[in-house]
């Protein structure tokens, strides 16, 4: 029973000012991470400037767990570029290479066909029903750089959310129980 008394004492001894200071520093950390993220979105012109490779369709170039840096510019889409696109109705973006480009003379609009390096066929099977080509508005960005292995953290946290909760719980506990 003694440890209950100790716990109650330690809770009573938490000063409000100290608690508020800690809460504010935590808030500062979270908001500065958000600011950096939004700044990246602005600079790269892409809605998600960093994506994690989820499938093996671009092996051996990009393996599952690599992260890609994206950049979107007004430059026209040309064959060979590795683009990230969203198919209508699917939420997970796909990262594949452009193999065919047909650009209209009059409107400048473009029909694009993509294919994963490691796939045998092109992506028409992945597009929406009846869709033969991708258009510019489907494309979220071009891959310009990559880092190997770093994306595994995101994959683990998405596929086993329990690990995410454990991590956040442990961090929260650490922050609360630290003496300074």
């Amino acid at each position: 029973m003694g440890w209950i008394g100790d716990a109650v004492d330690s809770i009573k001894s938490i000063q409000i000012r100290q608690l508020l200071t800690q809460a504010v520093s935590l808030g500062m950390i979270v908001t500065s991470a958000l600011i950096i993220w939004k700044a990246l979105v602005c600079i790269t012109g892409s809605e998600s400037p960093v994506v994690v490779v989820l499938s093996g369709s671009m092996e051996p170039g990009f393996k599952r767990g690599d992260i890609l840096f994206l950049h979107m510019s007004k430059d026209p889409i040309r064959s060979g570029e590795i683009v990230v696109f969203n198919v209508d109705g699917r939420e997970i973006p796909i990262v594949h290479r452009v193999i065919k480009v047909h650009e209209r003379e009059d409107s400048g609009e473009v029909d694009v066909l993509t294919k994963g390096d490691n796939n045998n066929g092109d992506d028409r099977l992945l597009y929406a029903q009846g869709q033969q080509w991708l258009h510019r508005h489907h494309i979220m960005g071009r891959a310009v750089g990559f880092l190997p292995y770093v994306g595994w953290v995101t994959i683990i946290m998405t596929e086993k959310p329990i690990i995410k909760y454990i991590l956040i719980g442990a961090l929260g506990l650490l922050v609360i129980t630290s003496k300074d």
Partner: protein
Amino acid sequence: MHSFVYRLNGLLTFSVTILAIMCAITSLSDNLHTPSPSAEIQVMNINWFQKQPQGNDEVSLTMNISADLQTLFTWNTKQLFIFVAAEYETPKNSLNQVSLWDAIIPSKEHAKFWIHTSNKYRFVDQGNNLRGKEFNLTLHWHVMPKTGKMFADKIVLTGYSFPEEYR
């Protein structure tokens, strides 16, 4: 301030920062390198040249592709993705790029090669504009690094044209 957890935190932060700096420097070192690749493509034969039931022209051809891309490899190169694309203009489209063949070159030893092949991907036009048309064949390469910035370039070879009639 000197507990195990704080030390672990400091160590982890430091090592991640150092790794990130190393990756950035590795990527920057690629800029110091000037490559001098060469390539040649010959169209050996137009196998057939037909109008599909849907109305689009389609052609099948056999090419002889030879290239020396060894100077593109640096210590930071994981592989080279190369492809040959036909580029041409039609009245409706200001640019058409159709990839005919691609390959992955995993190392410098494989970068000097010669291959006799028909087109891996179907060469289909949007319409029937190909008869008698001139086109370029470009050999593109995309350098995929072990870490960092990817870059790409190409060699444009001109002077190819389709036959005047279907065959």
